[in-house]
């Protein structure tokens, strides 16, 4: 099942995908079908009582590491984000007027489903609720070599679109063999496959849970393959992962 969270008719709703439409799953409008165009799409993540842990990976595809002139890392290069960076499908992302290089990053997002601590690779899939598509924008003008990638590059409001769906883990037979693709104004600029991750999803869950507890709803953004290019205000950027959906985003001038 593909789950969404939407705003419609003055309230927030949970919905699932149903034959090309959204089926509302909770009262007072449970059972109602809506078209994709008549709702506002929110990140497909249920609210949490405490801050959601959002871990992101840098240089997790060998080709992208090479593209950025880095040696492949020997252990996962991880950084964290605040939840305010997230926005939903079909939203607007701000590009500061003075920057020269702001690029998308199409990433497989893994959403944790059970409390995870000291999880072994072989058991890791049991701890996953589902998957989504994220676009982890970076503004390279702001890169500094202090806790790099630094938050000014990676933790900007509106700069992490996620969605449209949270797809149940049971519906993704092999998350390590999914094609990824990004288009800018309809032109393919990035394509890859999750099989090319340096640290695959089970390895990442084993690694993080070896020193920290992950809660249901926590998110791991697993890095991006090569093919990142600068985007300008007005550009429509669509990041898509096979079986998970296509996440659209429009860049606006800030």
């Amino acid at each position, binding site marked *: 099942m593909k789950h969404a969270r939407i705003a419609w008719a003055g309230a927030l709703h949970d919905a699932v995908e149903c034959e090309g439409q959204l089926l509302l799953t909770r009262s007072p409008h449970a059972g109602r079908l809506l078209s994709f165009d008549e709702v506002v799409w929110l990140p497909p993540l249920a609210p949490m009582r405490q801050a959601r842990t959002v871990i992101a990976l840098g240089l997790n595809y060998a080709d992208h590491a090479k593209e950025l002139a880095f040696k492949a890392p020997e252990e996962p290069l*991880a950084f964290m984000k605040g939840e305010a960076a997230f926005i939903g499908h079909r939203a607007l992302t701000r590009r500061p007027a003075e920057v020269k290089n702001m690029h998308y990053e199409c990433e497989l997002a893994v959403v944790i489903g059970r409390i995870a601590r000291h999880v072994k690779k072989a058991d890791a899939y049991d701890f996953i609720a589902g998957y989504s598509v994220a676009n982890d924008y970076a503004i390279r003008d702001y890169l*500094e*070599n*202090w806790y790099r990638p630094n938050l000014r590059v990676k933790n900007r409001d509106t700069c992490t679109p996620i969605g449209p769906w949270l797809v149940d883990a049971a519906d993704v037979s092999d998350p390590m063999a999914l094609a990824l693709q990004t288009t800018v104004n309809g032109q393919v600029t990035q394509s890859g496959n999750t099989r090319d991750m340096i640290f695959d999803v089970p390895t990442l869950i084993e690694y993080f849970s070896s020193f920290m507890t992950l809660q249901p709803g926590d998110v791991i953004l697993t890095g991006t393959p090569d093919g990142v290019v600068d985007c300008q205000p007005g550009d429509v950027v669509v990041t898509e992962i096979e079986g998970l959906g296509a996440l659209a985003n429009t860049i606006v001038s800030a």
Partner: protein
Amino acid sequence: MTLIRTPQTPWQPQGTVYGTLLNFRREWDLWAPRMTQDPYKAAPQAPVLYVKSANTFNPSGELVLQDGITEVDIGATLGLVMGEDEQPEFAVLLNDWAVPHASYYRPPVKFRCRDGYLGVGSLRPWAGLDVAGLQLQVSCNGAVVQTVDFSQLKRPLAQLLADVRAFMSLQAGDLLMVGTDCLDSGERPRARADDTVHIEAAGFAPLKQTVISALNTEGTA
């Protein structure tokens, strides 16, 4: 609208917790000669921030060392809890525990985001707090090991808030830690199993945590 939607006793942060690196002049000055060297290449321009994830929030009186860690940096600091109007609403004493790390090049997730690595004190109102006049006294097993003087911030509070907000919002409930100071050696005071660390400041309830080794607790359950 009240900030604390789900009252918790003792209090824990509900929003995202951000920490600030290199915000005391002592540490900045010690680092200055190396800032232009590899891999840093230049002094930091924007505030250097990091996230303390929710698994670190620890209002209990104990820090349990796990997974082979035997020694931790004590990180006495002040946290600003943001209100609805994007201004600080509460202040809190924190112990921003970390695994000692000499390099500031890569993000410090495995050093700073371990379970329980943010000792959380009790809230006091922001109103009436004179941050520049604030001093934290840090003691370990009764002996003073550090005095943290908030008149020595590299970025005073108003500037820190402005420089952070220039690139990201601080939402209601988010917490910004203004930084931890080092000793003259460049290191932070450290604690090991069985040490008890107190952080005290005028106008705040003391924050006390005892460090425990998981090796000593395993098998007793």
